[in-house]
């Protein structure tokens, strides 16, 4: 029996033979995610396993650690930075077998769940208790809770509830790279008694261990929600209006600012359904989607105050309700019409790609101008343009800059990488970061880690990684340089 066969047999004895495969037919399904790569690139793992229990994962990881085999946790496979692809082969752990909700605590407003459950399925279960987890990425039908933590990705409702997992994550169970199962944190809404190590795994991109369970803060479903779209002639005025809303003491759930292209993209159905095209005003540069929720009187009162602020700030409230509703539907936030998933249609010729930057609020107009210049320099069309969630309570701009790339042309893919690299470098120059919600993974921006972070900081990160993962088996080649 050769080494590979022996390992395979061991894995089968841990998770059951039906939950292990090294057949190429199965491995292809795990060879790509949604990240920027040319059409023919694949990263084949050697083996895929689908455990159902934390204990099984611990055994798999112990075996991998002993044999020095890379281990890559895989959630929904919708990542935009290549965080879950096996660039060095090894074992992919498909986490979706761990999809049980352990406890919904209505009184204390928490949910404890295994992390392979999708964001959508978790929210469906919470809804039965009149609760919800406001983290709401567009990928929610496929992406998992574990991946949300590992990438610290963004959702729509960050303005009120917090868009970072730091705002939700109270406790966590992790299988460390050496196979120990460790729990961090608790249900306590706040604690300073130890180091907040549960937060260490937020944005860790599978490099520090396998996140198997999480206790999350959840909220009661609002009784009423009102949504509006406001058109602005510049990003600057949209941002300024958003800040005024916050400063006025209003409490919006979501402030989502997008470029004209994005708004047009998300409202294509308006044309299909009502045979009416949205005619953007000549001077339109940005649109803001805003929502208020709570008791009807409270939400509507806030909306009416906000409308006045928008008018004063030069905004124009979109009166066509069908158009507004379609935006929210198409954005997959409030509802979802089966069969209307627009993503594949938008990518019949070009691959959607982009970069998730975060700069200090005042620098957003500056980097938006840079984006427009770089589109011309590198000859790209904006996909959904630029859009911005306010992440981390109130107003922390999580800015996504998007382009369409012909991924069947390797030269164009390389050009796209240069575009991304340059705008990310500019973000650092503005005092910002190279990633605010999608992770670094194997993205071209990884080479900018030493630019964004000090040498000492990076060395400390590496030491931490080495301490937890002495044999570098957890998702090697990602995030930090080897």
């Amino acid at each position, binding site marked *: 029996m050769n080494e590979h066969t022996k390992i395979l047999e061991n894995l089968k004895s841990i998770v059951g033979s039906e939950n292990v495969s090294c057949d190429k037919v*199965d491995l*292809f*399904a795990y060879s790509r995610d949604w990240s920027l790569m040319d059409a023919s690139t694949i990263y084949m793992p050697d083996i*895929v396993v689908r455990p159902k229990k934390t204990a099984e994962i611990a055994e798999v990881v112990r075996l991998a650690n002993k044999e020095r085999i890379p281990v890559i946790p895989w959630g929904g496979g*919708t990542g935009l930075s290549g965080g879950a692809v096996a660039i060095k082969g090894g074992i992919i752990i*498909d986490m979706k077998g761990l999809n049980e909700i352990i406890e919904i605590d209505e009184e204390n407003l928490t949910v404890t769940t295994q992390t392979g459950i*999708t964001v959508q399925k978790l929210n469906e279960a919470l809804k039965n208790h009149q609760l919800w987890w406001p983290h709401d990425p567009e990928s929610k039908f496929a992406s998992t809770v574990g991946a949300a933590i590992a990438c610290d990705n963004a959702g729509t409702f960050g303005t009120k509830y917090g868009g970072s997992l730091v705002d939700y994550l109270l406790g966590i169970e992790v299988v460390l790279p050496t196979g120990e199962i460790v729990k961090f944190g608790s249900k306590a809404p706040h604690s300073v008694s130890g180091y907040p190590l549960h937060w260490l795994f937020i944005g860790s991109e599978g490099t520090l261990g396998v996140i198997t369970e999480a206790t999350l803060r959840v909220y009661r479903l609002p009784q009423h929600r009102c949504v509006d779209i406001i058109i602005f002639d510049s990003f600057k005025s949209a941002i300024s209006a958003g800040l005024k809303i916050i400063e006025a003491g209003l409490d919006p759930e979501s402030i989502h600012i997008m470029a004209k292209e994005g708004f047009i993209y998300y409202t294509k159905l308006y044309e299909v359904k009502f045979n009416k095209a949205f005619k953007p005003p000549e001077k339109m540069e940005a649109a803001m989607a805003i929502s208020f929720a709570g008791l009807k009187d409270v939400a509507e009162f806030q909306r009416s105050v906000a409308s006045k602020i928008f008018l004063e700030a030069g905004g124009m409230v979109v009166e066509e309700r069908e158009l507004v509703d379609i935006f929210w539907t198409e954005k997959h936030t409030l509802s979802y019409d*089966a069969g209307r998933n627009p*993503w*594949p249609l938008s990518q019949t010729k070009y691959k959607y790609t982009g970069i998730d930057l975060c700069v200090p609020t005042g620098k957003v107009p500056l980097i938006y101008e840079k984006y427009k210049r770089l589109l011309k320099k590198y000859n790209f069309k904006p996909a959904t343009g630029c859009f911005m969630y306010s992440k981390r309570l109130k107003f922390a701009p999580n800015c996504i800059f998007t382009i369409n790339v012909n991924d069947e042309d390797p030269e164009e893919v390389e050009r796209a990488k240069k575009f991304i690299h340059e705008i990310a470098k500019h973000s650092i120059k503005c005092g910002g970061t190279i990633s605010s919600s999608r992770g670094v993974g194997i993205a071209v921006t990884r080479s900018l880690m030493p630019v964004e972070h000090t040498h000492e900081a990076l060395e400390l990160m590496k030491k931490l990684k080495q301490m937890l993962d002495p044999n570098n088996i957890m998702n090697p080649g990602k995030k930090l340089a080897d």
Partner: protein
Amino acid sequence: MLIRGFKQDIYTCNRCRCGFCREECPSYKTFGLESYSGRGRMSIAWAVLEGKLDLTSELAKRIYACTMCRHCSARCSMDITAIIKAFREELVEGGLVPPEVKDFLENTYKYGNPWKKPREKRGEWTEGTEIRRYESGDEFLYYVGCVGSYDTRGNRVAKALGEILLESGLSFGVLGSDENCDGNEVNMLGEKGLFQLLAEKNIQKFKKLGVKKIVTLSPHAYNAMKNEYPQHGVNLEVMHYTKLLREIIKSGKLDISKGLNARVAYHDPCFLGRYNEEYEAPREILRDIPGIELVEMERNRENSFCCGGGGGNFYTDLFGGGQDSPSRVRVREAYDTDAEILAVACPTCMTMLDDAVKVEGLEEKLTVRDISEIVKATIEGRS
């Protein structure tokens, strides 16, 4: 069409990777690995087109372990199910179908049914009833299909529908031993040559008999005859029985006033719902029966979860009967509604779900009944 004909869609999926088709896929639910989902199968198709993967029997298992329920297609702007069907056609051409599928196709070719049952026994279920052979001048041909004709539980459903149609005074007849397989599953399994043969033979028979209108017991036959047969040179009025029964009940030709006191959940068959967008007729029938409280399962209408019997799996049983098999998942979902009756409008769903109720040990709590049986019991004043 070969999968190359879908190259743009396959490459789009490979580029997009949204995975929205995955979570509600019965095959993925059963087998767990992504290669058993719509997106996974598109990865396999992409690898084949790129010359990175050969057509093998292992590959065929992934492509055939699909109920063709169209849930993935309903979630996507592309028709993934059509691509899987094209994939199957290629596997049939390459002689790579799983043995269970091969047996199904051979038996259907030789015997006109997948169980090697004698053709002359096809009409035996009518014995002891007044249901007669179709005669020239009858308004409707009642097409029963293989499950209604040969399966014991299916026989009861076929009989219930026949008897209520008689009660309504409808002019109709059956083909009995002259009936042949409608070919819907043959088509779904990718044997288009055999499907063409079956369709043409059936069409020839219908034309010879002067059939103008067909009412089918099974949504599978309904789908084939309504959507595929016209391409083979016939233009019949085909309806699933729920639509006809709704009209009959609305016209007052059946006395359902005795009612039925029960909490009922209705399961949408894929070939009636997602394939043909008929969601309301069965519900209206149930709502019209006094005493019935119609409840919805969590997944219903366009989002309904397949019983696991579609795409030939009723016969080939490639899914097995494990804890996560679609039929068992579905009856647990029905049980969660506190319904006493799980109503179906398809003999395949009936058999799949009826078996699953037994395996789940729910016989005392949940009964699977076809809408025709429910209507019959109502007319007769039985519970």
